[in-house]
């Protein structure tokens, strides 16, 4: 019920092509996910002490009004239903404040490099709405969704984020998400929605909070998370993919000297420059593959 795509640019001089190359990748996954889409892009890190916070609000929201209410605003860019707030304020405190004063505003991501966009519409509409073709940066994780809930909402779209600069998209279906939620909520982990993917995201969030590396968390996940999954993750400087033991959900990796690209189907890779000479392979089940970006 989903399509996933990821792109990591290896050569710094090609970072301004990130969005241009990734946009047809996303649109190529429209049939797997026509209802909503999400994109996480990792760009120039903001200065130490500052954080970027991606926000989503329903159409017609008074962003100017919100900006006036905020202190410590180092930057505030609005586009369609989305805004990126750059601030030195404490993100945890800010999250609580938003919940209290502007409940219809959703905090999509927090970090120094990540910007995250999620919305309802076809992948092409969303790419256009947020100017995806112009995105620059080291890497990008995106997802197209085939919704089942009657309210096709932005909050239920992927990517999900945890902590800072960490995001996850998922193709597949987990079979024990509710037990996981009931295990994590008493530990102080809060959930935004009821999508099964969020259970995986919060599980990894908890493990990393407890000190596990991403690899350790993923390895524990093989036992604790039940069901079928291909997970594609972004961190501040890396792209990672892992598949469950049955590997029923597809994934394909193409790699050249210039980039690494990942997609559910080859269709989304076919347009990439140099793909005909790329190394192409399918990730093995229960193995973690990661690529680091040059800063």
């Amino acid at each position: 019920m989903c399509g996933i795509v990821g792109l990591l640019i290896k050569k710094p001089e090609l970072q301004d092509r990130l969005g241009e190359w990734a946009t047809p990748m996303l649109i190529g996954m429209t049939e797997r996910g026509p209802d909503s889409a999400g994109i996480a892009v990792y760009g120039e890190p903001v200065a130490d002490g500052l954080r970027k916070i991606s926000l989503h609000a329903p159409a017609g929201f008074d962003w100017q009004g919100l900006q006036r209410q905020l202190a410590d605003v180092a930057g505030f860019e609005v586009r369609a239903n989305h805004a990126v707030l750059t601030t030195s304020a404490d993100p945890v405190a800010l999250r609580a404040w938003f919940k209290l004063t502007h409940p219809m505003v959703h905090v999509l991501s927090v970090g120094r490099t990540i910007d995250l966009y999620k919305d309802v519409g076809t992948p092409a509409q969303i790419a256009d709405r947020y100017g995806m073709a112009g995105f620059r940066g080291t890497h990008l994780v995106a997802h197209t969704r085939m919704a089942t809930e009657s309210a096709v909402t932005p909050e239920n779209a992927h990517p999900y984020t945890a902590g800072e600069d960490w995001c996850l998209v998922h193709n597949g279906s987990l079979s024990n998400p509710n037990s996981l939620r009931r295990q994590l909520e008493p530990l102080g982990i809060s959930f935004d929605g009821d999508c099964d993917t969020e259970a995986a995201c919060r599980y990894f969030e908890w493990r990393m909070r407890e000190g596990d590396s991403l690899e350790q968390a993923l390895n524990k996940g093989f036992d604790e998370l039940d069901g079928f999954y291909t997970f594609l993750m972004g961190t501040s400087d890396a792209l990672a993919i892992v598949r469950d033991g049955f590997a029923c959900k597809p994934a394909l990796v193409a790699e050249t000297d210039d980039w690494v690209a990942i997609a559910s189907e080859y269709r989304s890779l076919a347009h990439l420059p140099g793909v005909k000479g790329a190394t192409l392979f399918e990730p093995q089940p229960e193995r973690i593959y990661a690529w680091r970006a040059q800063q």
Partner: protein
Amino acid sequence: MKIQREESWGYDRRILDYIQNASATGLYEIRGLGAKRQLPHFDDLIFLAGSLSRYPLEGYRERCLTSTVLGTRFASKPVELAIPITIAGMSFGSLSANVKQALGRAASEVGTSTTTGDGGMTEEERRASKTLVYQCLPSRYGFNPDDVRRADAIEVVIGQGAKPGGGGMLLGQKVNPRVAAMRTLPEGVDQRSACRHPDWTGPDDLAIKIRELREITDWKTPIYVKVGATRVFNDVKLAVHAGADVVVVDGMQGGTAATQTVFIENVGIPTLAAVRQAVEALEDMNMKGKVQLIVSGGIRTGADVAKALAMGADAVSIGQGVLMSLGCNSDSWVKGADPVTGKGGEHVSAIDDYAALGTAPGFCHHCHTGRCPVGVTTQDTVLEQRLQPPVGASRVRNYLNTMAMELSTIARACGKQNVHHLEREDLVALTIEAAAMAGVPLAGTSWIPGR
């Protein structure tokens, strides 16, 4: 001495049998038919018919249309039926060749469709049945492109009501040479089918599979997607997203020729709740009328058909009822009937054969043994002669016609010129459970529990 007879509700004869059987064999019980436990069902719904505020149609003079078209969304050759009652998927292997022929003949005479099952398409059925739906199951036994091309519709089976999440089953005594050859299996093995399709998993990949079937059939043939009723609301939406022309939902009362009893009685939701959720899913996506809905699982009478249609189904599918029409659980079989009309002949008692299986007419669910006393669910060359195609065809035709007449009688009484104009506001419920599951008010009130 007076005998004390205080029975336990929780440890009744059924449970005593179960425990004693498990203790003797160490194996779960396998049986045929569907859920036998009492469930909220169509019996708990009734119609609000013509009155001062709503005018009925004349029962014998004013027309009431029953024709039904399925598969209009993408296919260039939708399925056109004279009545909204079809014959559900049942395998050659679970049923005899004579039965498949009888069903085909009856369906053709009445103007409806039959459906193949886990054993593939037989020549008899294709020849006998004017409209034949070809199932594509996880096992893919006998599945081949020539039959795909000569099918009138293709039904991709995710699951069935008797065992959602489980695959087909045919015990060794029914895997005779012909069945074995059709299924590419050694004779006599206990066949257990896979529960997932071999070449796709999940609705996103099902969409691609459906496209493949459309490409093979040059987009002529309607594609149905059949689910056993569990998470119906989500499943119907996903089936529509994946590109289905028709969705088939089979409630827990749906039958099988062989599966674990524990599966039949404890997995899947009642048809009543399933219909409601399926219709809600279609309405939510604004696909009502664009993607058709067929409902099965315990459809027995014309009243059941009418109620399913009123709740929003476009058609129903019948499996067990049709087998009972052929003679399942009847105490006799017919010998020497006219080979053309199927009439006449003499009734021969089958009571002793039931007894030999450890059962009696009215209680039998021993399809899995292959020793059906009336020759329906058997591959035995002697037993299968007990159901001759003309006899079977005549019975099933009569049964289908009776239900069709009952359906239009009810529809006319409700003032409808077309059975597809029956609507949920024509119904009220007799029990709170039925009101909640079906989403109709409790009779005499405006209360729908759970809303």
